[in-house]
């Protein structure tokens, strides 16, 4: 591990001022905020991340989970994944989020990992994690050996000729389906970013994964007020039953009235270079009767634009079955 200076800023303003001196935005930067450490310390041991300064934000008052006056939920940046998953309001009104978190990682990691850290979780692509290999995300311009190499677990949505790495998060898939908002405080003030706009596609700049600029601190995430009677489900398919990243997952939020789907939100995990919302599936569901044919049509629509890699064509059918099964389970909930 490279040497670094460990700093504990006394407040958010000091944290932002210290991080604003960084050359790039947060991920891969020379100055890094540290939350739970579950991604960052792992990657620092591998010399994939080599910050000169580490800013410990765990003691900042950013860990609260509060119901807002409008009935929505305000989730502090350093709230632990387990505290969020077991929160009574999340379990009753945003169950897809609780399910997604509890199917991710292990109990120990969920006790450590923060909400903001999960938003910035980095890919598990083996080439990214190995400094002996080329990787456009880690070292821009060196190439992407995954495209012609081991890519079974990598993306079928949102890839570019420079990067096909999958976003590994479960929590983010639920936040995409719940239409969360990410709140950021930076050197120029505060701003709110719709969840779908927070992560960016790799394109020509796979080293850039979010809209964060140097000094930007995620302070909290908000969820809109719950929709009465909405039916929710998170289904995760993986190589083993627990403690494994998704090959395909689906977060579903449905509203059903008179046997018809009046509102649908569908997001997919394990298949995209960012948390993958599917407006195609949502359109195929809205206004339709609740039955198997509708579910299958939505799954077909969702995977229409998928582009498989050399080793993961199976993900297309897997994702379709994942969506169909998740819709069936949600509708019956």
């Amino acid at each position, binding site marked *: 591990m490279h040497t670094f200076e460990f700093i504990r800023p006394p407040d958010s303003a000091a944290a932002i001022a210290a991080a604003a001196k960084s050359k790039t935005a947060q991920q891969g930067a020379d100055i890094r905020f540290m939350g739970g450490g579950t991604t960052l310390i792992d990657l620092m041991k591998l010399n994939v991340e080599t910050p000169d300064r580490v800013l410990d934000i765990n003691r900042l008052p950013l860990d609260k989970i509060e119901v807002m006056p409008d009935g929505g939920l305000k989730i502090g940046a350093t709230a632990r994944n387990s505290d969020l998953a*077991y929160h009574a309001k999340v379990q009753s009104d945003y169950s897809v989020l609780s399910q997604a978190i509890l199917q991710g990682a292990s109990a120990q990691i969920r006790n450590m990992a923060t909400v903001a850290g999960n938003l910035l979780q980095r890919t598990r692509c083996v080439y990214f994690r190995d400094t002996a290999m080329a990787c456009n995300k880690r070292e821009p311009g060196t190439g992407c050996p995954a495209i012609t190499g081991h890519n079974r677990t990598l993306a079928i949505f949102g890839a570019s000729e420079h990067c096909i790495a999958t976003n590994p998060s479960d929590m983010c898939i639920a936040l995409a389906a719940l239409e969360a908002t990410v709140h950021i405080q930076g050197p120029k003030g505060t701003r709110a970013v719709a969840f779908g706009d927070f992560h960016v596609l790799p394109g020509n700049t796979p080293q850039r994964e979010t809209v964060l600029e140097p000094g930007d601190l995620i302070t909290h995430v908000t969820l809109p007020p719950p929709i009465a009677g909405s039916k929710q489900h998170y289904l995760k398919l993986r190589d083993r*039953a627990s403690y494994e990243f998704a090959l395909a997952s689906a977060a579903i939020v449905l509203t059903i009235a008179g046997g018809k789907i009046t509102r649908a939100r569908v997001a997919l995990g394990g298949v995209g270079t960012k948390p993958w919302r599917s407006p195609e599936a949502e359109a195929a569901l809205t206004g339709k009767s609740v039955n198997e044919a509708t579910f299958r049509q939505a799954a077909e629509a969702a995977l229409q634009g998928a582009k498989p890699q050399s080793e993961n064509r199976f993900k297309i059918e897997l994702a379709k079955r994942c969506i169909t099964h998740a819709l069936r389970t949600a509708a019956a909930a």
Partner: protein
Amino acid sequence: MAEVDRSRRTFLKTSGTTAAAGVISAYLPAHATAAESTPESEATRPAIEGAVPITLRINGKDHKLNIDPRTTLLDCIRETVVLTGTKKGCDHGQCGACTVHVNGKRVLSCLNLALMHDGNEITTIEGLGTPEAMHPMQKAFVDCDGYQCGYCTSGQIMSAVALLKEPCGPDDAAVKELMSGNICRCGAYANIVQAIQQVRNSTSDRA
């Protein structure tokens, strides 16, 4: 015959006079012998460039330390404080062997920096019980034969004790799911689940 000291580390140290001495001592911390019985004072420890002072509270005892900022909580516990019950398995958060409690919650000590933990209450397997007065979970692991080689055991037990206070369904499947972060390469899983269920059932009987 006198009472045998079963500690593996004591065995390794006392066999230092044998032919294997050179090999074994290379794998022990240079100060292990002195530190385990009489903790070394800061003055006698070699200076570390860029070291930062910190007080860590482990098993109810404060330790004043000077550590390199890169030191993980795991390495600090094992190499600096010389509490070697906590094990280093993968060192990347994939095996659970390094599980300890921080303020009563189970965490992976390999994915935390020691400097993040001043003021926190850290508990390791040494703080849970002793061979003479075992924690009920330690006793259950012995009763149920919940191990073979024993390397993952302290992590399994720390995880299992924390699980008692977490939302966990009554059936074995729920226990397995919440214990999935602790890998046992000997495959003692069935007995580990049995040990945990034995403690859960006896606790609920008393309640």
